[in-house]
């Protein structure tokens, strides 16, 4: 690809030290986001998708939270985010890289009017005057499709519905014209008709501004609608990645295949759903192996003994699975 990557993560490892041992929540994850591209990280609870996002934003191990970055590189344009100091990070965060979360209520200050909270980054990053920031805040509220923006600017978070708060979060996120928007399960807590509005809005902003989106979700339907490129995570690792149509139509990894088969699809009813047997392994008991082998229909001897690495298959995709390795290595 000719265009340089906007974000490039290489070998990122984020660990949590607990009394029972070290949890490798993110274990050697690599991924890239190109300008104007929507990359989705998809996976089930505990697969490390949110911790990956928080690591990018420098939100791991700060403010007394547990967890540490144990290795890797996060390159944004020409800077390594892991090497920036607090001040340098602040000039990027909320400005060039913005983030929205599942629970907008927990990201907003309950005792500050909505308008003031939208003004904050405008004053901090764009150096707008208070007056200009206020006018821009009202414009932004209107832009995310909320009626009566002047009144809403004076309202407090508890006075708004979940869908409206998520719009406000989007207004704050796009206020400084970010190049990258990281959205962590942005519509999971919302009703489906409201989800449709929010996804529509994200697509529209992306089309207008050439912003890149890193979308973290467990919902394969949302992935199919939003993604250009998909990264599938399982137990802290990337097990497969690829262009969205290719990945949905020709999934390679048995986990991706199982995940796609086990989701009921509206309009394609079957009598029995496929289900992946068993459950996600305990993160404290992982040994060098394919972490999926206990649940895998195709498990071979080698899967129990050694960990497969992510290898290119097809035109742009990659998969970490022994089924796609040369015979010699598998049986050697």
């Amino acid at each position, binding site marked *: 690809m000719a265009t340089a990557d906007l974000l490039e993560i290489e070998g990122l490892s984020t660990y949590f030290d607990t009394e029972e041992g070290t949890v490798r929540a993110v274990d050697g994850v690599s991924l890239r986001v190109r300008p104007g591209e929507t990359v989705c990280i998809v996976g*089930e*609870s505990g697969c490390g998708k949110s911790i990956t996002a928080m690591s990018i934003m420098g939100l791991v191990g700060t403010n007394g939270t547990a967890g540490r970055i144990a290795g890797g590189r996060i390159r944004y344009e020409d800077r390594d985010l892991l090497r920036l100091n607090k001040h340098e990070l602040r000039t990027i965060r909320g400005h060039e890289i913005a983030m929205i979360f599942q629970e907008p209520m927990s990201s907003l200050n309950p005792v500050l009017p909505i308008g003031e909270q939208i003004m904050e980054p405008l004053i901090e990053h764009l150096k707008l005057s208070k007056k200009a920031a206020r006018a821009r805040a009202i414009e932004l509220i209107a832009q995310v*499709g909320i*009626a009566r923006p002047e009144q809403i600017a004076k309202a407090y978070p508890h006075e708004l*519905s979940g*869908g*409206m708060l998520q719009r406000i979060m989007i207004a704050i996120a796009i206020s400084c014209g970010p190049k990258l928007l990281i959205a962590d399960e942005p519509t999971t807590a919302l*009703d*489906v*008709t*409201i*989800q*449709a*509005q929010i*996804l*529509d809005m994200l697509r529209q902003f992306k089309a207008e501004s050439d912003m890149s989106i890193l979308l973290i979700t*467990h*919902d*394969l*339907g*949302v*992935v*199919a*609608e939003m*993604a250009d490129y998909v990264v599938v995570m399982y137990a802290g690792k990337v097990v497969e990645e690829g262009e*969205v*149509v290719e990945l*949905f*139509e020709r999934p390679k990894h048995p986990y991706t295949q*199982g*995940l*796609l088969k*086990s*989701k*009921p*699809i*509206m*309009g394609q*009813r*079957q*009598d*029995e*759903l*496929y*289900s*992946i*047997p068993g*459950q*996600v392994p305990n993160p404290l008991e992982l040994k060098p192996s394919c972490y999926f082998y206990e649940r895998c229909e195709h498990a071979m001897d080698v899967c129990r003994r050694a960990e497969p690495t992510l290898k290119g298959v097809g035109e742009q995709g990659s998969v970490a699975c022994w089924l796609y390795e040369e015979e010699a290595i598998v049986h050697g």
Partner: protein
Amino acid sequence: MAEALLEVNRLKKYFPIKAGLLNRTVGQVKAVDDVSIAIRPGETFGLVGESGSGKSTAGRTAIRLTEKTGGEVKFKGVDLHTLGAEELRKLRPKMQLIFQDPYSSLNPRVRIGDAIGEALLDHGLAPKDEVRDRVLDVLASCGLSAYHIDRFPHEFSGGQRQRIGIARALVLNPELIIADEPVSALDVSIQAQIINLFRKLQETRGLTYLFISHDLSVVEHLCSHIGVMYLGSLVETGSRDALFREPLHPYTKALLSAVPIPIPKLKRERIVLSGDIPNPANPPSGCKFHTRCPFAVARCKEEVPAFRNVGGDRFVACHLV
């Protein structure tokens, strides 16, 4: 046509809104307003709707976990809301409830075997020396192992806890199970296991389900009949195939079109509704959906549409149908 196992007739449940120093009632939330459904034995009726639509309250009021404001509910022909406390108690094992988060209904200090077995003893449905066998039996039916019987709730994963929730309902040999968002908190791969379990249990035990969910993909998969609720009222009911193939009410159409489908190349027409769900304490006049309806006409604002039969088993409340 077989007689309905559960027949809900114009059920109403209003909650008072209290305010002020004297705690006077200043209004009411019509959480369930004139809801009528009939569920025949062996059917799965899916009640769908978004937050605040009243679907959970409808389910609970139907089996009299809360008292009704109006209307009538018959279970096997018996009017549930006129029964005395003792008679109702005798009927309880026949109607069981399964929740979204079974963990919150399990005592953390009680072993799973005891938690499942206690209802059997409470209702005098099994002598003490038979309880353990009955519990082992139901654990096996729900895909749990015999050694789980002496474990505590915290030792189980989310999917296993839902199996416990199901086992606990099942041990009483119910005829009707009301399942309130039973798979909503589960990951996709685990969700599929539990959905299959619901279906298997229905086949082997002839259970009847009232399945309450906001997830239309799951509802289409599991349910034979569907009711769609909006702000306390049913807007449409019908058999699954008819309703999914040709939704009649504009809200049902919008709801179905908003469900993300995991097929990236799929192109479809989407009806994006404007605005939020109105405050249930102060619902719009006329048709409650008119504020968000892309097809609304003047009449919708003034006149409440009747919930009427439009052929077969389909009912819809819309002036335009």
